[in-house]
Structures are given as structure tokens and as C-alpha cells.
């Protein structure tokens, strides 16, 4: 798909925490400095900068402007911003680098969910006339999706709990995880419902956090990293905003993105999926056709830490890390936006020279 070889040459993330005591910009500053240090690049050598964030998380129109402080804009820089997860910023950077005139891009995603009440903010993503006034929040929609899966015989409640138990256990090995523990499926199933059939543990934590990556073209990438992680392709697709027009037991947009990227042209050793609610893993595994040999969310995934607007980019970082460190050869990172996986992005990554 991509005529130009673009690789991730450095990456960094902050730990996901319940409340970060300083600004988003300060997180981004730390990450930017870390990436530049690691690659030895001067700020001026980064030809394009692009960030993802969401004003409504902090309740301030134009909040994103302050984040510019974090990655630096003096002397003036070529940069842009999407009001979306950093994974979509990565998409823009990857597209931009295809043109051949820019060699290196800095991509970031950041968000503090701690100041506001996400369950009250996110209904504003739904149809403004028919759904938003109902306060229809992502947890409620995830509950409906879970019910649809149970009714269709595609999952049992035990399957949800198994995703949670495995994820939270895997999170224990992840220094950036916020919530991680060893808990049994049976213990989880004893907990009361929160948005039935979902229980509190089927939901992601509320997190603050940020992630950033440096991407570079071809030979420049080989200069900057001993083991560049090549982006073989990025594709993203969206489904209807009207729940009644969607099949909540499937993820047709993920399926389509996977087809476009030919993800099964080779084995997928690792997949980091934006599983915000445990049933989403079941839907995605099926829609993406992931085989049992694919290790899913070894980081613990968003159930262990969900820095909104960075969560998708964190998935890219987690896959890139494992490829760089030789644990995997080929991996898939997934990002999602909107209620019940309405919009999905896939990023196919591969190691090698």
C-alpha cells in the first residue's frame, strides 16, 4: 500500500495515572525531550509535528493551543492538530511523509480525563437531536453491545471476565499500567452489575497520560534507529452514528480496514487493541480474524490504563516496543473512537531492515 517506507524510530509514553498533577503540555514536553535525546535530533530537524487531543476533556475551548508549549514552536514550526486520538495524528504524519519533502515527523497524543466527568462529556459524541439529550454515554452503549453479544450467543459473561482477568494480570508486568492485579474470573463474576451485563471491572479506568513517537522516511529512519519499526500501512473506517443502523455484534469497519491492509499476508505476532470495554475484545478478535497464535494486549490494554486521546497511540507504542525488542516480528495496533467501536484505525507494523 505504501510506496514510501516510513518507520517509527523512537517512542515514549507517560504512565497512565488517575490524576496527573501538572499540565498536558508538561507531559508532552517531557516526552518530546526524551525522543529528541534518544535520537540525537535537534528540534529544528523535525519537519512536521502533529498532535491529537480533545478540548472538551478539560472543558476549555482552544485547550489544544496550550499543548503547543510541550513540543515547542519557536522558531516557528510546521505543525497541525486533530481533535482525535494521537493514532489519527500518526495517520496524518504517515500520509504527509509520503510526499517526500519531509523526513522526520513528531506525533503526539495526550489527555487528562481527571478534571471532568467522562460519562457526562462523551454523550456529546452522539446524534445531537436524538441521543445526546438522553446523556447516552459510552458505558451504556457498551452495555447494550454486551447484551447483543450475549443474545447472539457470541459470548458468555465468563468470556468478558476472562478478558479482564488476563488483561489486568498482564498489566502487572507493565510499568505504565494504572490498574493491574491478579484476580480470578470467578471473583470477577461475583461483582454486581454496573451497566448490565457489564460490571465495573469491564470498564476502563479514568486516566491522564500522553504518548509520542518520531517517524522517519527510508534511509533517514535507518540512520536514526538501530531497529526501525516499519509502518506497513494505516487504514481507518467509520460506521453509522445511529446505533439502530449498526450491527453491534461485529466491527465491520475494523474488518474493512483489515482487508485494505492485507493484515493476514503474514503472521500477526502481537495485537494491541483499544479494548475499552471487555466485550470489545471479543468483537475485534472475530472481526480482525485474529488467530490464537496472536498475543493480544500484552500491555494489559486500555483496561489497565486509558489516557483518552493517547490510548490509540499507546497501542502503537506497545507494538513498536515489542518489535524493536525482538519479541515480535509483525504486529497490529488498533485505535477506536466513538461509542461501541464506531470508528476504527489499524496500523500494521513490522521489524526488519
Amino acid at each position, binding site marked *: 500500500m505504501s510506496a514510501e517506507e516510513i518507520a517509527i524510530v523512537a517512542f515514549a509514553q507517560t504512565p497512565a495515572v488517575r490524576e496527573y498533577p501538572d499540565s498536558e503540555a508538561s507531559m508532552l514536553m517531557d516526552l518530546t525531550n526524551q525522543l529528541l535525546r534518544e535520537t540525537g535530533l535537534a528540534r529544528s530537524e523535525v519537519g512536521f509535528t502533529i498532535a491529537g487531543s480533545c478540548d472538551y476533556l478539560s472543558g476549555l475551548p482552544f485547550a489544544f*493551543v496550550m499543548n503547543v508549549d510541550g513540543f515547542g514552536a519557536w522558531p*516557528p514550526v510546521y505543525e497541525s492538530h486533530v481533535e482525535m486520538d494521537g493514532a489519527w495524528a500518526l495517520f496524518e504524519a504517515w500520509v504527509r511523509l509520503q510526499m517526500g519533502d519531509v523526513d522526520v515527523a513528531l506525533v503526539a497524543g495526550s489527555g487528562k480525563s481527571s478534571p471532568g466527568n467522562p460519562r457526562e462529556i462523551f454523550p456529546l459524541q452522539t446524534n445531537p437531536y436524538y441521543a445526546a439529550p438522553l446523556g447516552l454515554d459510552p458505558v451504556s452503549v457498551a452495555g447494550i453491545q454486551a447484551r447483543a453479544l450475549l443474545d447472539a450467543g457470541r459470548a458468555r459473561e465468563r468470556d468478558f471476565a476472562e478478558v479482564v482477568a488476563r488483561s489486568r494480570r498482564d498489566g502487572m508486568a507493565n510499568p505504565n499500567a494504572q490498574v493491574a492485579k491478579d484476580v480470578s474470573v470467578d471473583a470477577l463474576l461475583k461483582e454486581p452489575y454496573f451497566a448490565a451485563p457489564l460490571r465495573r471491572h469491564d470498564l476502563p479506568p479514568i486516566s491522564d497520560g500522553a504518548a509520542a513517537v518520531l517517524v522517519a522516511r527510508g534511509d533517514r529512519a535507518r540512520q536514526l534507529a538501530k531497529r526501525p519499526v516499519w509502518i506497513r500501512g494505516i487504514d481507518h*473506517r467509520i460506521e*453509522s452514528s445511529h446505533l439502530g443502523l449498526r450491527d453491534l455484534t461485529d466491527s465491520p469497519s475494523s474488518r474493512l480496514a483489515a482487508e485494505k491492509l492485507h493484515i493476514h499476508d503474514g503472521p500477526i505476532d502481537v495485537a494491541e487493541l483499544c479494548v475499552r470495554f471487555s466485550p470489545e475484545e471479543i468483537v475485534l478478535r472475530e472481526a480482525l480474524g485474529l488467530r490464537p497464535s496472536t498475543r493480544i494486549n500484552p500491555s494489559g490494554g486500555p483496561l489497565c490504563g486509558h489516557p483518552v486521546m493517547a490510548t490509540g497511540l499507546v497501542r502503537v507504542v506497545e507494538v513498536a516496543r515489542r518489535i524493536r525488542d525482538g519479541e515480535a516480528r509483525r504486529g497490529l495496533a488498533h485505535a477506536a473512537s466513538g461509542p461501541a467501536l464506531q470508528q476504527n484505525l489499524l496500523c500494521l507494523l513490522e521489524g526488519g531492515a
Partner: protein
Amino acid sequence: MAERCAVIGIGQTRYARRRDDLSLDGLVREAALRALEDAGLDWKDLDAIVIGKAPDALEGVLMPELSLCDALGAVGKPIHRVHTAGSVGASTAISAATLVESGLYRTVLTLGYEKQSEGNATWALGGGRSGSQGAGGSFAPWIRNYIRKSGAPEHIGWKVAVKDRKNALRNPYAHLQLKDISIEKVKESPMLWDPLHFLESCPSSDGAAAMVLTDSAGAKRAPRRPAWVIAHAKRTEFSQFPGRDTVRPAAGVECAKALYAKAGIKDPLHQIDCAELYVPFSWYEPMWLEGHLFTDEGEGWKLTDSGATELGGSFPVNMSGGVLSSNPIGASGMIRCLEAASQVRGSAGEYQVEGARIALGHAYGGAAQYFAMWIVASEPAPSF
């Protein structure tokens, strides 16, 4: 690998204080359907959609690509949303152009919009607090400093305000249709933020603007004349730092330099036929003429004063009426890019600059810290 990008369809809504005849879906579709029709295409021909708008709090709709995707034929397609404050319309057009130029997407719909009558722009610009100074309140001190520094006479701002509103009378889409606009009327209108009078300030408008972009092969098949994207550039600087020049921001100068270098332009005032500049407050016309290197520092107001920037002048600026006549914030930058394209396609009707071959579209945003501009031409490889 770089592909060429051409604009083959443009569409706008009628701009108004309040488009009370439309829902949000209806607003964006009015512009998008016009652009598709102009391009001779249908929804199914689109490979990707890129939308942009100013802060979500203007309408109270979060991440609107999620709730508008159905209306824009985006289901099953890539759609994403750019947000770079007031410059967003132009940033969005540029983002869409790069999708085509990358060679990854053939035909892209790009759209900017705002239905700000649903909320309140001054409220949003003040972060929802009491005492908002709005945009004008932020720029007024810098405008005063420009006037002091340049020695410009006080009538320059009034002259721009009259010129752009007179141009708007030739534009059926423009919001303000002030048939009896005059220097006197501008002077007598209430002072909003000294030295800006009410009639020197942009309106608050609802509206949407859309373009269909495609590659060379697509441009060949298009039913109407394409506008070729020759170059684009963006630059950003901090809103505040010790020593910042807010009158002539460095990011604006750098952006223009990068744009002209990309286009192979050495003398923008003479090699570009006309420009749609983002002028929401009258004095920004002379300030951007200087800040984007059309004139030397201190000379911008003289160009305006000479009449050169009038519709019949040697360097027409804001032939469509500009932001001073229509300002749906999320669309305004897109409208500048669209109107530049319209000029070189020869489709600007009663405000057509005769023989326009090269046109510039521009937007700025935030604390005059975000800049996004493009140059379009009637030929893919124009000579200068």
C-alpha cells in the same frame, strides 16, 4: 511519492447569522452536495473525507465527524477532523490536499463548517466565562501598535471595511449584504474594542464550505476547469513568549516564505493575481500585506490606500467579501481557499478577477499564531 492535487468541485452554503432552515446534517450537506455536483461526482466516488471546524463547544457537539459521518457519505470510509482554531478551514484543505498528493487517496471531500448560532462565539472564545474579550479584544492592542508603528492614517481600516462589504454585494452567498455601507457609516458605528468599530469587525455566521480534490487523472475527467494546488504551507508559533512580535508574527513571515519558495514565486505582489486573506478585523488587510511579504514593512497600508486591493485594482484582495462579510469560524479558512480556487477556475461570477491565473488563499488563527495558506493556479505548471 507526490501526486498532483486539483480542486474540481466547490460548494458553499448561503451564509447567514442563523441558518434556521437547516439541521447540522442539512448545513454540511448543502455545501457538500454543491461541491459534488460541481465535480460531476456522487458520494460513492469519494475515497476519504476530511472535515474541520473550530472548538466543539461552539455547537456543543463533541468530535462531530462521529455524528456527521452518515450525512457526508463517510460510512465505510476514512474520515478525520482537523482543529487549528481560526485557521482550521485552510489547515483542513491542506490536510485533504496531502491525502491526494501522497498518492494514497484519489478523490477527497474536504469541508469546513460552523453553526455557531446554536451557541455563542464570544462565550466560547472566552472559555465559557464572564468578561470574554472575544477575538477583537485580543487583536485590538496589536492593531493599535501597528497603527502607531506604521504611522497609518485612521481611515485605512474604514476603507477596508467598505471595500470588502461592497465586494460582498456581488457574492450571493455572503452573509452581510450592506447596500448602504460607507466610510461615514463605519466611522459612526459603535466602538467595540478601541480602535475597532462595529462595522470593522466580522459578523458571526452559520455556514459550510466544501471542495472536492482529486489527482491528475481525476482532474482530466472533471466536467469543469480544475484549479491546481501549486503549493501549501503552515507555520505555528507560541501565543505568548518574551519578545514575541504580535504585529508581524514570525510564523506568518516564515509561512509565506515557505509557500513562495515551494511555488517558485519571488515577487508575490506581481506574480500572484489576487488573494483571499483572512481579514476578520479591517486592519488585518494592511497587516497581512506586510506580514506575508506582499509589501515591505510599513507599506501595507499604502497599498490598501492606493486602491490596488479593490476588485478592479492591481492586486485584488477579498473579492468575495472576505471574513468581514461572512464568518462561520470553522469554514472561513476553507472559504478563502475555495474562493482562490474559484478565481482561477473562472467561476467567481460578478467578483471574478479577469484573467486570474494564480490566486492565494490564507487563514490565521489563535493568537495570530497559526498560519495556513495555499496557492492555486489555472495550469498545473504555471509560468510566472
